[in-house]
């Protein structure tokens, strides 16, 4: 039955379902669904109890001549036009009569994956408890998550940057007190008992234990050791500020002690930029003590620190290459021959290093500076170049753009690049780079210049990107390729006529 509108409301239509029961909650849901339909102004669905009829009447949804029984079910609809009304009544009919009785799916509740450190720890199986938390959340929260992890007895791998110095000191003090590792902040690389975190390479297991303030420095070192036939027990990242005065080398010292006590570690290497002087002294003293007490050879690979600064018991090297040589020598091994043949005559112009790895860039800068050739080395992973874009080890396009643009520079003779393979890195870093090298070379040649490219590929043979394939790709683009950064730099120096 229908009734004319009161005021400017659309007409009211009420459909009665005799002796049909649905609970009020189901009916409210039904009515809410009807009201979502186009053209439906108001809808109500109730059991026709006196109370419910009163509710309908008060909201002007009850025709005066209706006299239902209390066990009748009413569907009242005010709709604009017959089509909207028909659609609403059909939907009501379908839900009341056709659809399965009001109940949800038979399935269980949706899974609720753990969100917090505490929930994660609780969710681990009893026979595989949590032991480490990798933190790469926004820097503002990294200290909080790290603190939660340390408080729960977890080691921390802190990839996040933008952790304040004060927080770093506090977290490392807390970690040290609990005998835990806090690796970071801004820690790119770690490997603990074969568990590889961040940017790492598939190096074979072995006796070399590495403490690294530097991500790609540790990768270069580990890959050179691997290629010499050695292997790696652990890489403990400590973050770039650990050997500063403020942090005082807390984590480096703790990591060295751990490696000294670790039966799997036979030789200990520390890789870092030059430490703060006061910290350097403390570090050298500790390394000497470790050497004496554990009998394990100790290598301090401190970029740019004079080799002569070592003590009788601690080998100090100022390049990654020198550090790797010392480590493999301690293992009775030698590095493979990575030298590139030097073409003559030299090309005019200087060297532009376009690096994705910060420590590799630092080593290149050091060697180029010592050679006295004109050069410029950019660490394109630095914030000033990424500017919100992904790190160039993750997304090779950023560096490819720089390489392509270098083809237009008349002052250049050599482009020097790194390709870092392994976990965390792009699936095909050489691809976009090779295209850019080819383009830059063409552009230079078109301008009557001879622009060469030298590349170093950092990687282990077992890395998923396939080093051989990556090397072939670069060679096809006319790059000279080696697998040792220092050798690549030397080749670049030779190419521009500098001393070898």
């Amino acid at each position, binding site marked *: 039955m229908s009734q004319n509108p009161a005021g400017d409301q659309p007409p009211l239509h009420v459909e009665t379902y005799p002796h049909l029961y649905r609970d009020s909650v189901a009916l409210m849901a039904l*009515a*809410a669904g009807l009201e979502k339909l186009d053209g439906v102004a108001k809808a109500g669905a109730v059991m026709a109890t006196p109370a419910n009829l009163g509710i309908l009447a008060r909201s002007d949804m009850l025709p005066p001549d209706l006299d239902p029984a209390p066990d009748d079910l009413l569907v*009242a609809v005010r709709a604009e036009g017959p089509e909207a009304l028909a659609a609403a009544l059909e939907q009501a009919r379908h839900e009341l009569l056709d659809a399965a009785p009001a109940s949800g799916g038979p399935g269980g509740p949706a899974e609720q*994956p753990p969100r917090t450190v505490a929930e994660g720890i609780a969710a681990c199986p009893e026979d595989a408890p949590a032991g480490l938390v990798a933190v790469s959340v926004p820097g503002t929260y990294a200290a909080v998550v790290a*603190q939660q992890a340390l408080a729960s007895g977890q080691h921390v791998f802190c990839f*996040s940057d933008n952790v304040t110095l004060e927080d770093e000191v506090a977290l490392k003090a807390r970690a040290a007190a609990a005998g835990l590792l806090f690796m970071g902040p801004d820690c790119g690389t770690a490997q603990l008992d074969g568990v590889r975190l961040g940017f790492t390479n598939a190096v074979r297991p072995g006796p070399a234990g590495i403490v690294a303030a530097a991500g790609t420095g540790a990768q270069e070192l580990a890959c050179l050791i691997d290629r010499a036939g050695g292997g790696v027990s652990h890489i403990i990242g400590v973050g770039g500020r650990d050997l500063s005065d403020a942090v005082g080398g807390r984590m480096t010292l703790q990591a060295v002690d751990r490696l000294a006590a670790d039966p799997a570690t036979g030789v200990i290497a520390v890789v870092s930029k030059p430490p703060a002087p006061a910290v350097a002294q403390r570090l050298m003293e500790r390394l000497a003590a470790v050497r004496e007490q554990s009998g394990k050879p100790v290598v301090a690979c401190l970029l740019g620190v004079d080799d002569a600064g070592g003590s009788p018991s601690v080998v100090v090297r100022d390049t990654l290459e020198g550090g790797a040589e010392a480590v493999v020598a301690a293992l009775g091994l030698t590095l493979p021959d990575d030298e590139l043949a030097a073409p003559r005559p030299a090309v005019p112009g200087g060297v532009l290093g376009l690096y994705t790895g910060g420590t590799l860039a630092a080593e290149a800068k050091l060697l180029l500076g010592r050679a006295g050739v004109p050069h410029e080395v950019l660490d394109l992973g630095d914030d000033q170049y990424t500017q919100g874009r992904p790190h160039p080890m993750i997304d090779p396009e950023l560096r490819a753009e720089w390489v392509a643009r270098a083809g237009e520079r008349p002052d250049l003779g050599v482009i020097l690049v790194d390709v870092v393979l392994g976990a965390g890195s792009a699936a095909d870093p050489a691809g976009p780079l090779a295209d850019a090298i080819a383009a830059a070379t063409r552009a230079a040649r078109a301008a009557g210049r001879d622009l060469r490219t030298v590349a170093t590929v950092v990687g282990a043979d077992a890395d998923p990107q396939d080093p051989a394939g990556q090397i072939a790709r670069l060679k096809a683009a006319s790059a000279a390729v080696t697998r040792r950064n220092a050798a690549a730099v030397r080749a670049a120096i030779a190419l521009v006529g500098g001393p070898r």
Partner: protein
Amino acid sequence: MILSDSTTVLNAGLPSITEAVPRARVLQLNWRPPAFGDPAAARLMASLQTPAVEAANREAIAAVHAVRPKLVDVRPAREAIGFLASGRRLLHAGPPIAIEDMADPVRGALIGACLLEGWAATPEAAAQLLDSGAVEVAPCHHHHAVGPMAGVVAPSMPVVVVTDPEHTGTRCAYATLNEGLGKALRFGAYDADVLARLRWMGGTLGPVLSEVLHQAGPIDLTALIAQGLTMGDEGHNRVVATTSLLARRLAPVLAGLGARGVEVMRFLADNDHFALNISMASAKLAVDTAAGWPGSTLVTAMARNGVEFGLRVAATEDRWFTAPVGPADGLFFPGYGPADANPDLGESAITETLGIGGFAMAAAPAITRFVGGTPADALANSIEMARITVSRHPVYQLPALGFVGSPSGIDVLKVLDTGILPLINTGIAHKKAGVGQIGAGVVRAPQEVFLKAIGPLAGAIGGTVDDAGGGGTLP
């Protein structure tokens, strides 16, 4: 060896960080910024995540669970609640609020209470009386009472007296008797029918129940509500089973009281929500045990006055943390919609504070339909609430989840850490006094109150835990 062969790595952040770790050894967290994205609050939270606070919370909730509330009597409020013993005084729901700021339904209920007490002859006179400041008001929670919706308690109203001398000594909890659905004082209605029913409740219902309880009582409310939970109640929005069990318990005595007894039996038969207020008083008695507990971050009250949501936490005892409250997102009776709804109202969230109501949804699948849900959603709700609670109720069990205890004891720290807000089942009042209930639904407590609480909690607790060795180290 630093990590054993079986160590699991938790990954908070980029999945690529652990791409070289065998998948079976990585647990990727569904991490999101804690403390609703407030870094300062997150640091305070972390500073309180200590063994000492955990221990305090465990002890506090154990003390709460040890309480076994008994319904011992029904007395006029003026005899039970000291504040109402003399003068023109009324209680209302939620955190403190000035009369001039009150929501219309609360104001309506106060007007009705003035009429009921004979302090004014007309609604206009009652309104003038209220505006003149001649009536002193206070939140129910300040006087061991709880009230649904407007929560207004007047001296002549009968209240249930709930206590457990063994565990709470002389401390009691109180709640008014439920008036039933439709037009009711708790929705701000004060017409002749409403007042007549209140007078009957004061003159007949209260005294009869008192008489009955002296014969059939005290009634173990924990056992009663627990049985209701196994019969489809959640102890808040759905208490029809508990009401029926209570009526059955009282029926033999009521039957012996002649016409007065029949009247009361009829009232109980017609009111599916009668047990709500009793469930609330029961929860209040238990939860108050944790109020003021040193070092504890457990929630001890969640209440709404129709304008603001108020939160109380154990270690900060009497302090309220408040935030504006919005209308419940629920389903509406025919003809009504969200525009008609008053902001969320009432103190029935004391049930969720203990760990039933929205937390016991798994026991009451039908309730999930209020949000268009399914039985699976009901289970999910109870599972989710376990993520922000420190314990499970030892008696209130959830059959559908293998009879596990209902999640109990909301921890402010867990709320901030997970970003999961307490679920509260609620009725929806019309924003105009007297229209009554126009819908029902499920709401979440507002995040602001938890963010406001964390600083004072750190202030109240911080100094006491640092020395215990577990304190936060972040500067």
